[in-house]
């Protein structure tokens, strides 16, 4: 009798380079890339094959845990459809459902073909090269390559799906790229169109544990979302809202807090914001003639002073003054008067959230903030504000994205909870080698390392576009990458003087994660030559002319650190830590990591030394470890030099055996809770938008754009999406949300993820509220068609109580159709295919965020099966 049917013993920890005489059995520490986060993991390799993966107990961001996506994805190494040889397209015709007629070619043929295309476009107009990927640690390589090549179009990813608007709000009010909550001390948390702490947002493992701890100690969680997501299911209160009206709800809550309750952290508004700055009737700051500095009224001194005058005793927030014939009011007074005109009842109609609920939420939130309370930490007395709101794409991806995000965030600001214990916190606006600072107006300017692409403040000069992301038209944005398709298709209208000729693409499925697959197909067809790096042939790779077989991230090294410190290290107290992605095993013969191929292409183009020159700066390599011209440095070699710069000359990439996470030191108090220590103000009044708006209006007139630019307003306002207007038979709004076990469009081919998705009651379904389904005579489990003016998707109906009755719910990015997809093809529906391609009426003119609101109708499926609308 065999008592033991499983025989695995305790794992041994060995280095990746095991002794050839010993049987290969090693747990190799590295960094997961199952999503954009960078959780520490250990990968179990036996006889050259990966058999398991677990969280790294020593990595602060995983602490030994792992999520479904991370656990499952080593199966992708051995997927049946993996690309193992370079491929060339034989069919010149490109389109959805068109067979590329691949033929295998040699690496030399593939490299030669791509090099020739690149050389030609570089001679003609280097900006004709577009680089598209969503491979965060690879950005360092592609940016240096693109810059050396001479193109500025090296960042087409999926920012339309991401947070063009939310990031701007965090940058302006926190000086950070992302936001979070103080899950240790916060007692009242609102998650607004996002799922922080539930495995579908940033720093997911750590946040999930902390969120569960917070709930266990009695913190109240409120979730505002049209669908009762996994997150809303765990909340004390789910507040369903009509999609696209989050800005209206925020305005109403601001009204209650400021006007009805008068519950505001006035001390913070006086000292930490531009609330006291005097504003003239034309909306601009009243400035001192001599210094040009904004003025405030000193209620104690009875006179106007510059905002930074040492003798300023009591900056006035209300009233009005006339100075030398110019009348002016404090910015806060304008905000308050503006909010006084907001009707809570009207906003209740707009949002479908009852007025009583709005008043209760605003009351609970502002009371829980305990304005005025303090806490002693390490001998410092800091404000304690244990109530906070977190927001992301769900509430932000709308026509009025900027105003919605800053309206919500202003609730945080007025509670005085920004970057203080208990409150909302920016993800590391201050770190070991970067810091937010202030400009001449005393206003917060984020660290340059965080706004290296564009910066929302101070705004840049508006100008005709020179790049396909059209960012020059958005002088107060962070990034506008969702506009690449518009720039590539219609760039001339916006000032772009050249065409896209070559696309280097990898690791982003543009066809599925962008609005309207048909329009994206048109965009891709415009680009004469596309080379893709891919481990499988997805819907976008089907448009490629050449395919390079790409490595799994277990088969590659990456630039160091793999975790962007201003996005992927939990804010608040803790350690600074830096993670190294190392190769666990060699790629299969004939497969190379795309980053290495970029360096190879750079060498063939004769720009490798220039890449190094740029890289030495951009990759933070100190003089002792500089990359030398004329040498072909591997990515591993470069990463080691970066790590030696940061961690010391003793660092060896070959000795990463226990953990791939390197802790340097604990954060200081000023790094953990930066706001009380930062001498920089944040805006309650967006004065900078007046000048930016003037420039954009002038530019729009010159370019003949009929864009509605009313969003360039200094006070928060509600801007309705076009989808909120009735449109005949299109009587519902479709909403999209993430599942904790699927990642974008890339996890659907994993057999384990597929299995749990099939078993899940919602994942591959189309959701309708029970009453809405009953009105239409539709029943649970039947096939339905969701149709907008732009596309049509079919799927299985799930009748549920968990969705707003005016909505249709479609989760994830599903409904694959690529010929070589095996498990995921035809499963679930594709939300993005119901959206139109971005155009002026659907773009937030401040942040460049693309609107995700669209009206649809739902009916019983009939007629020809298969995919329509594509």
């Amino acid at each position, binding site marked *: 009798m065999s008592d033991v*049917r499983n*025989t695995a013993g305790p794992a041994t920890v060995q280095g990746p380079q095991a002794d050839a005489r010993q049987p290969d059995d090693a747990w190799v520490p590295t960094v997961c890339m199952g999503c954009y986060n960078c959780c520490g993991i250990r990968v179990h390799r036996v006889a050259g094959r990966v058999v398991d993966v677990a969280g790294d107990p020593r990595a602060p961001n995983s602490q030994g845990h*792992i*999520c479904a996506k991370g656990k499952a994805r080593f199966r992708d190494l051995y997927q049946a459809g993996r690309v193992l040889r370079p491929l060339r397209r034989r069919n010149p015709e490109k389109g959805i459902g068109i067979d590329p007629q691949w033929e295998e070619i040699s690496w030399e043929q593939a490299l030669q073909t791509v090099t020739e295309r690149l050389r030609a476009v570089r001679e003609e107009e280097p900006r004709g090269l577009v680089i598209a990927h969503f491979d965060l640690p690879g950005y360092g390589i592609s940016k240096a390559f693109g810059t050396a090549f001479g193109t500025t179009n090296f960042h087409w990813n999926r920012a339309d799906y991401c947070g063009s608007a939310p990031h701007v709000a965090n940058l302006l009010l926190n000086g950070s790229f992302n936001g979070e909550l103080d899950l240790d001390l916060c007692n009242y948390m609102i998650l607004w169109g996002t799922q922080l702490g539930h495995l579908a947002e940033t720093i997911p493992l750590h946040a999930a544990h902390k969120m569960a701890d917070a709930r266990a100690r009695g913190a109240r969680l409120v979730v505002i979302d049209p669908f009762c997501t*996994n997150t809303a299911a765990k909340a004390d209160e789910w507040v369903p809202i009509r999609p696209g009206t989050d800005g209206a709800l925020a305005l109403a809550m601001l009204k209650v807090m400021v006007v009805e309750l008068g519950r505001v952290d006035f001390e913070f508004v006086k000292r930490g914001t531009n609330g006291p700055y005097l504003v003239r009737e034309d909306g601009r700051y009243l400035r001192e003639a001599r210094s040009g500095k904004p003025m405030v009224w000193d209620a104690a001194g009875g006179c106007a002073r510059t905002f930074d005058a040492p003798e300023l005793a009591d900056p006035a927030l209300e009233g009005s003054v006339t100075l030398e014939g110019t009348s002016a009011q404090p910015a806060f007074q304008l905000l308050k008067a503006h909010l006084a005109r907001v009707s809570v009842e009207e906003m209740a109609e707009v949002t479908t959230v009852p007025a009583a609920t709005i008043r209760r939420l605003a009351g609970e939130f502002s009371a829980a903030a305990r304005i005025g309370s303090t806490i002693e930490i390490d001998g410092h007395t800091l404000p304690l504000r244990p109530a906070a709101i977190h927001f992301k794409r769900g509430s932000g991806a709308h026509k009025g994205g900027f105003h919605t995000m800053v309206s919500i965030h202003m609730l945080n600001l007025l509670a005085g909870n920004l970057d203080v214990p208990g409150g909302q916190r920016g993800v590391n606006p201050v770190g070991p080698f970067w810091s937010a600072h202030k400009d001449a107006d005393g206003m917060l300017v984020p660290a340059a390392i965080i706004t290296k692409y564009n910066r929302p403040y101070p705004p840049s000069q508006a100008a005709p576009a020179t790049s396909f992301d059209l960012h020059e038209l958005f002088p107060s944005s962070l990034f506008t990458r969702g506009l690449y398709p518009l720039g590539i298709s219609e760039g001339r209208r916006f000032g772009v003087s050249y065409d896209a000729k070559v696309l280097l693409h990898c690791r982003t499925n543009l066809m599925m994660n962008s609005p309207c697959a048909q329009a994206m197909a048109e965009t891709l067809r415009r680009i004469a030559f596309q080379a893709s790096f891919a481990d499988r042939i997805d819907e976008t790779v089907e448009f490629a002319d050449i395919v390079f077989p790409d490595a799994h991230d277990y088969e590659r090294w990456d630039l160091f650190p793999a975790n962007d410190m201003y996005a992927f290290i939990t804010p608040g107290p803790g350690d600074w830590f830096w993670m190294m992605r190392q190769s666990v095993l060699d790629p299969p013969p004939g497969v190379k990591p795309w980053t290495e191929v970029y360096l190879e292409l750079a060498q063939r183009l004769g720009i490798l030394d220039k890449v190094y020159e740029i890289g030495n700066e951009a990759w933070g390599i100190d003089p002792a470890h500089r990359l030398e011209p004329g040498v072909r440095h591997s990515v591993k070699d470069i990463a080691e030099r970066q790590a030696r710069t940061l961690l010391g000359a003793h660092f060896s990439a070959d000795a990463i055996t226990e953990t791939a996470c390197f802790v340097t030191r604990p954060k200081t108090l000023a790094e953990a809770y930066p706001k009380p220590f930062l001498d920089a103000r944040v805006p309650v009044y967006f004065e900078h938008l007046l000048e930016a708006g003037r420039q954009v209006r002038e530019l729009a007139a010159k370019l003949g754009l009929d864009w509605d630019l009313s969003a360039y307003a200094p006070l928060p306002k509600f801007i309705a999406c076009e989808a909120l207007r009735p449109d005949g038979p299109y009587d519902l709004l479709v909403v999209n949300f993430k599942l904790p076990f699927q990642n974008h469009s890339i996890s659907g081919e994993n057999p384990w993820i597929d299995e749990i998705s099939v078993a899940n009651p*919602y994942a591959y379904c189309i959701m309708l509220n029970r009453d809405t389904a009953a009105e239409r005579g539709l029943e649970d489990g039947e096939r339905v068609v969701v149709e907008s003016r732009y596309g049509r998707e079919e799927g299985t109906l799930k009748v549920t*109580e968990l969705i707003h009755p005016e909505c249709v719910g479609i989760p994830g990015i599903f409904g694959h159709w690529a010929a070589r997809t095996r498990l995921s093809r035809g499963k679930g529906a594709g939300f993005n295919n119901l959206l139109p391609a971005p155009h002026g009426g659907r773009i937030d003119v401040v942040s460049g965020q693309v609107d995700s609101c669209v009206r649809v109708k739902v009916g019983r499926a009939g007629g020809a099966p298969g995919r329509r609308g594509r």
Partner: protein
Amino acid sequence: MSRYAMAIDLSRCNGCNACVVACKVEHNGPPGILLTVILEKETGRYPNANRTFYPVLCNHCEQPPCVPVCPTKATYRREDGIVLVDWDACIGCGACIQACPYEQRFHVKKEAAARAPGGAEHENPGLRTAPAGVPLKCDFCYHRVDAGRVPACVEACPTGARIFGRLEGGERPINELISRRHARTLLPEMGTSPHVYYF
């Protein structure tokens, strides 16, 4: 000998399914068989609606109905309470599958044992793969437990919702949790005395 048990904190489970995949990996799990799943249930009417997440697995009962019905004694309970199946002794009659009131035993069909057609296989050579015909069930990852580790689902769980240990003794005796949190078991009226507790 004190029994092994699992306590599941339902307030911490958010339905992320990390445990389900971890279990699959740990058991060379054939397609179509999940030895632990998270049951989801809707409650209430909109807008006062919600859903609950309920992880289920073999209950490793004190009085396991699957044991006495086995004609070959292939199903047995170890002294530490873990209920196992000796695959070599199993004749595949399916009586235990019928007997389990929790429906937590799964028949390994031929095609499942052979894996999905054309699919890449996952074979951890350190683990034996279930042959066709036997019942597959949660085994509390006894091979890990015997080596001083916790079950794979417990290790993976990002929120720490699953707690594993001895009912008595040790640093975190499960009995202490059970009484402090008023934990309950599934179908107590069946008289099976499960060793999986919920609170």
